[in-house]
């Protein structure tokens, strides 16, 4: 082979050298595919770099500075983290966030799964029910907040009116620290359940009908069918819902809190994300807020890792 190529390479005829050189420079098919893949991925990667990775790195870096909010940056090392460790309001907000996550995620999971099972039924008008249940998810959280603020009003809200019509005492759902956080959770479940319901529905529809048919022939009841077929085969979907709803609970809900309670009453709904927002944009403490934000991300990563470990990443038992 080399004998064949070598004379050609030495050819210095004016008409023959240029095309061959061009041919040699041309990329192999494999490399060309790499380039194509890179080009197709580039917009996303560039977008992620500019809008996610760079701000994230800057935010972590900001946590080591005291930032005046007017262009002055002073290096404080771990000063913001020390302050965070000694800030009782931050730990209060973490405690409230913990309670919020611990209540919201399981409730949301169960409600969404229940709705997913219900809307899987083949009944007339099911598309209307599915749309109706999904609708709250597409409404802006600010609008949702205002809507529920009126509905949960102490004096004239429909909830208290309904309770009074049943001879019960109305409560201050958003003004009493005993109820406020749970009211926010209830509103959040109402907003998010449609989205996770659709995810569960997709998972349920992926389970082959033959399994249910076999279970029916074997005489399995609804609970036994759910426990032995639906639940195990929903594992990847359940994992996804659990992970996403946990992340959303730890880092989301700011706009709803902002409209519904502004963190009150008596800091009763001051989630960590709200406290961080308040420190940054209300008080101009950008460095301190960044440090708390970085810490919250760490917590979120740790939670995600635990969920991955416990659920084996949503894989089935027989998957490697």
């Amino acid at each position: 082979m080399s004998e064949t190529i070598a004379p050609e390479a030495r050819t210095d005829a004016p008409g023959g050298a240029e095309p061959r050189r061009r041919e040699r420079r041309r990329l192999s098919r494999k490399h060309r595919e790499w380039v194509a893949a890179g080009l197709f991925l580039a917009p996303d990667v560039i977008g992620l770099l500019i809008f996610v990775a760079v701000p994230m790195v800057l935010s972590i870096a900001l946590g080591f500075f005291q930032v005046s909010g007017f262009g002055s940056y002073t290096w404080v090392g771990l000063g913001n983290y020390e302050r965070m460790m000694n800030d009782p309001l931050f730990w209060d907000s973490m405690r409230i966030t913990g309670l919020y996550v611990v209540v919201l995620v399981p409730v949301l999971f169960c409600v969404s799964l229940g709705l997913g099972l219900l809307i899987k039924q083949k009944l007339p008008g099911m598309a209307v029910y599915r749309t109706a249940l999904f609708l709250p998810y597409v409404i802006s959280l600010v609008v949702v907040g205002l809507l529920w603020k009126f509905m949960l009003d102490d004096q004239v809200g429909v909830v208290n009116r309904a309770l009074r019509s049943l001879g019960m005492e109305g409560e201050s759902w958003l003004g009493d620290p005993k109820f406020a956080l749970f009211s926010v959770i209830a509103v959040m479940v109402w907003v998010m359940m449609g989205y996770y319901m659709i995810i569960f529905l997709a998972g349920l529809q992926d389970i082959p009908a033959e399994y249910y048919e076999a279970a029916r022939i074997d005489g399995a009841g609804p609970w036994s069918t759910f426990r032995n077929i639906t639940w195990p085969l929903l594992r990847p979907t359940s994992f996804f819902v659990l992970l996403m709803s946990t992340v959303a609970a730890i880092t989301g809900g700011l706009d709803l809190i902002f409209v519904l309670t502004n963190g009150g009453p008596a800091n009763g709904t001051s989630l960590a994300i709200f406290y961080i927002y308040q420190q940054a944009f209300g008080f101009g403490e950008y460095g301190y807020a960044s440090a708390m934000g970085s810490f919250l991300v760490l917590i979120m990563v740790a939670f995600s890792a635990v969920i991955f470990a416990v659920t084996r990443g949503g894989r089935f038992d027989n998957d490697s």
Partner: protein
Amino acid sequence: MLQHDNVVARTGRPPGRAPGRGASRRGFLAGAAGVATAAASPALLTGCGSGGGSGGKLTFWNQYAPQRTEDPAVQRQSQWFIDLVDQWNATHDRQIELVFIPNATYTDGAKLPSAFAAESGPDIFLISPGDFLRYYNGGVLTDLTPYMDREAIADYGDSLETRTVDGRVYALPMEVEPLAIYYSVSAFERAGLSEGDIPTTWDQLLDVGDRLRGNTRAGLAFDTEPGYYQNFTWYPWMWQGGGEVFAEDGSVTVNSRATRQALQLWQDAVQFGIAPRTMPAAGDLLNAFQGDNVAMWQSGIWEVASFRAHAPDFEYGVFKLPVPEGGSYATAMGGWAFCANAQGKDPESAAEFCAWALGTMDERCIDRMVDWCTVAKTDMAPRESVLELGEASGGYDFWAMKKFRDEIFPGGRGEPRYPPVVYKALSDAIQGSMLAGRDVAGQAERAEAAIQAYVKSYEGASLI
């Protein structure tokens, strides 16, 4: 069978493409992507751009104008700002452009602080007393004193107190807004009460509130939402008992009998069911009164304009804040002020504009302020000459305005300019005692400890 791969392999071009010198599909896509990126870059970059405005114009951020609205009261306010800037632009080389920022975004939102954090704040902006120190200590407020008439500074008198540092003026108030209590005449009558029952003491206030409350009607509404505004509405109750957050010498004195009794008043009002835990009608005072969801509500002079514009037939009354036993009357007075960004593109012109608009003895300047305080809005004037002219021109003849002028305004104090940490410590004490029912002594003690810890490391202008 001719495979796609074979065509590409042999000819180096995709099937269906004629050989020639035209650009390949990949080349086209790459080129298009490049062009699109180049085209989008300026738009993306300007999207993150400054509040510096277009061209050489100075930007004036505010929550009034220009805006299109059907609301006649808002229209008047918007037009006042537009006229003001038009007058300036007609007589000065350095042009100004109004930038409207919706109220929620401007006051409680992230818009203004984010702009300054990005070093692209507006050249001229409105500021409330609660924000003054933060912006002053940040070095972004221009000293307006050199641009003002000495006589005008004297004319402002005490109204400049919370906007002055070491005798220099850094913001010019356009209005003074005292707090009082509004009440529904109809609710009073239905409860068998008359004007003679208007409370003058705290005990009477709670008694009357108790008689006025019903299943769907609050007897008395204090602000319930944590924030600068709630603190602003609470301060007078503390002042009336002689309480102060800081003594004259700067020491922290918040844990006092006066503070505890003010916290106790709000706690009692909520615990006895006289005051609601959330604002009636989601905070809409007019709707709450018209819907009979509230009988008395602590609010400011600006509500007179709202009643005039939206509920002219609603029968309401207003009275000054009752006082505790052995206390003396006080109310808090808020209001917005013009200030110039020291880091803006032309701080001198911006400062000159602020002084020209509100800080000279020129007849047009005084007329303009009278117009703002008595026509565009219903406010007390921050300057003596403006107040006098406003009275002479009948701006305070309306019964409610007269009440504010004669009874409520005298004895008023400017809203304090406490920085965020102080605000937050007090807010937590108010919220904790009012809505969580916590021991008021403990709340006052905790607030004092937090403020003391902050003051030790505080560097900046005087907190009082």
